[in-house]
């Protein structure tokens, strides 16, 4: 038992975005999550903090990794976790998002964990339900728990976030992971660089308090952290990039490009990886440099902290 026995209450009703969180909010979540890491490595992982609480995972978009991570997190806290996938629910039958929200709300869940392919959809749903809502990724907007687990990984490996240089590389334009990460890291005092071809950078991105590069060797120079983003393979059809070969040549992470980063630079990837597209296999599997597996491990701890912080809020219904 490593987590404090004092109840951890997150001071917001929902977790919809990193935008709007203070450094104290973020630090409190990371501290709490850190306490769960040891527990998750024990034989008996189960707690009873959320006993009697119902957590519904509502995924309108395919996801194995994030859904499983939330499911484990909920179960380890003793909560009742139910998975609803769009494929098996009435959403396929033409029910609207808000109809779904109203139906679920009538079942009095305590936490809804929601993923949706459209930006803002999770917030829309949160406005219509009485329980806490966690954004597990909405369109190209945010994926706050991913940014939190990335921050926890960095903090464990580097001891801090403040003052680190973090290069976020690849398809920034379509990435909710990039948005949440640049907001969180910026809030915590890290220097954030974005490295991507112009076609994969969104409009006015320089106004988000980041440095923008279109060359990997310049962008990675003296970086403490190199965070790679997944390239959706359909981006070729949209003429964002001409070919996987060209993309890998200029923007894929290999040892040659990594050589300009700090010698102890940490490599991260939110998964699932396209080996040989945005990241070279050897680099991805480099046990000394890559934190990719640790990211997955810490994902469960972070989601436990988030579920604990939101799932124990007093209900008013």
């Amino acid at each position: 038992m490593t987590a404090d026995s004092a109840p951890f209450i997150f001071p917001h009703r929902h977790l919809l975005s990193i935008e709007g969180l203070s450094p104290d909010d973020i630090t409190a979540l990371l501290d709490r999550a850190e306490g769960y890491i040891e527990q998750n490595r024990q034989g008996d992982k189960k707690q009873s903090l959320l006993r009697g609480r119902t957590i519904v995972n509502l995924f309108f978009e395919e996801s194995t990794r994030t859904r499983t991570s939330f499911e484990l997190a909920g179960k380890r806290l003793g909560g009742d976790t139910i998975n609803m996938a769009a494929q098996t629910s009435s959403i396929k039958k033409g029910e609207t998002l808000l109809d779904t929200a109203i139906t679920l709300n009538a079942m009095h869940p305590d936490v809804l964990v929601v993923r949706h392919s459209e930006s803002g959809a999770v917030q829309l749903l949160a406005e219509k339900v009485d329980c806490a809502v966690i954004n597990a990724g909405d369109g190209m907007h945010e994926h706050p728990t991913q940014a939190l687990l990335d921050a926890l990984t960095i903090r464990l490996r580097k001891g801090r976030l403040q003052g680190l240089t973090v290069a976020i590389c690849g398809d920034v334009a379509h990435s909710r992971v990039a948005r949440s990460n640049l907001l969180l890291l910026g809030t915590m005092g890290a220097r954030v660089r974005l490295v991507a071809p112009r076609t994969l950078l969104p409009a006015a991105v320089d106004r988000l308090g980041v440095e923008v590069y279109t060359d990997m060797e310049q962008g990675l120079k003296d970086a403490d952290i190199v965070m790679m983003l997944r390239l959706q393979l359909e981006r070729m059809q949209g003429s964002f990039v001409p070919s996987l070969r060209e993309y890998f040549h200029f923007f894929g992470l290999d040892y040659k490009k990594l050589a300009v980063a700090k010698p102890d630079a940490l490599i991260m990837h939110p998964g699932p990886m396209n080996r040989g597209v945005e990241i070279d296999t050897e680099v991805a599997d480099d046990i000394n440099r890559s934190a990719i597996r640790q990211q997955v491990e810490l994902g469960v701890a972070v989601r436990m902290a988030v579920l604990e912080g939101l799932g124990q809020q007093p209900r008013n219904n």
Partner: protein
Amino acid sequence: MTTRTLFINARLLDPASNRDGRGEILTNDGVIVALGEKLSRDGAEIIDCGGHCLAPGLVDMRAQLREPGDEHQETMATAGLAAAAGGITTVVALPNTDPVIDEQALVEFIARRSRDVGLTRIRTYASTTKGLRGKELTEMGLLSSAGALAFTDGLKAVADPLVMRRALSYATNFDLLIIQHPEEPRLAEGGAMTAGEISTRLGLPAISPIAEVMMIERDLRLVEITGARYHAAHVSTAEAIDVIRRAKTRGLKVTCDTAPPYFALNETAVGDYRTFAKVSPPLRSEDDRRAVVEGLADGTIDAIASDHAPQDQESKRVPFTSAASGIVGLETMLPLALELYHNSQVPLLRLLGALSQRPAEILRLPAGKLAEGMPADFTVFDLDTPWRIAVDAFHSKCRNSPFDGRPVQGRVLRTVVAGKTIYTADKA
């Protein structure tokens, strides 16, 4: 039998003659027969305007009325009432109904429905291309004879440059007007709001503002070689307004309009995914909004249209990218436009001209002027008293307005079509 009506105690505002002063106006059989002071009262019904403004009835050159096809969103009857409540005496419908207005019988249908409803005069455009498909031209000559005021593919740009060239060229045979939705469709594809910091923060697919000026610049080349009359709908960007300003200086037969969202709001209205602020073209930056105001002040922008686009709740209570575009506008056009007068940005007569005289001239309608012999279409409004827009009081079937609760000045008190009062505000 004659029906004489004398409107007394009014502040007569006529943009065409620059008239702004107290006076009376006498109508007979639906036509203005005299303007002035101390007119003869013989046998006339007398209507006291209470010292309020009396201006030409507003001519709204772009609205979606949803009939035929989407009567659950709006009908000629509800739109006619909403338009009347908005001080509009002529409204022109876009042809993007179901079926599309691309045949004479459908133009005649609109005329017949307008007569049946008997409120605001409802006219229509016909589509430039059959079925709005952007490929084959409609029978412009016949459609025009049937009453179509101009030709437009509504919310769709005529994207194919060859089709646009032929449309403009063919239109010159009959001296017809082509109205373009000026947006390069490939640059706008899938976009939900204008490109910028806010679209990036919200993670919304964005439309580059150059999509507008690019289409207008292409069209102006075609206007130059065909000599056609061309009108750009709802201009919203500084670049587009600038290009039109220069084209007018060069003497091209080009006109344009805008709609209240483009001078009353900017992209920040999208806020946290407010679907009521989703419009096409999208709300732009503050710099663009200021350019729209400037364009109205210097006359580069000829007209203000309501851009009325009723959408039911199911179309708006969905995630932002899936939500339908559009704002209901018939009942808020006048007070929102008058903000520009109250902010000392556009003189009153120029503003009223953009709402009546200029669109009437562009569409060659006998309207928009207070003059003897003109149809007696006017609106009486209280210029100053503040009030709040309340969507629940709308006569339109839909409530999709981001202006709910907005404090405004300028309220329609009475709307008159052909000398007959079709609307009076409830006396509070």
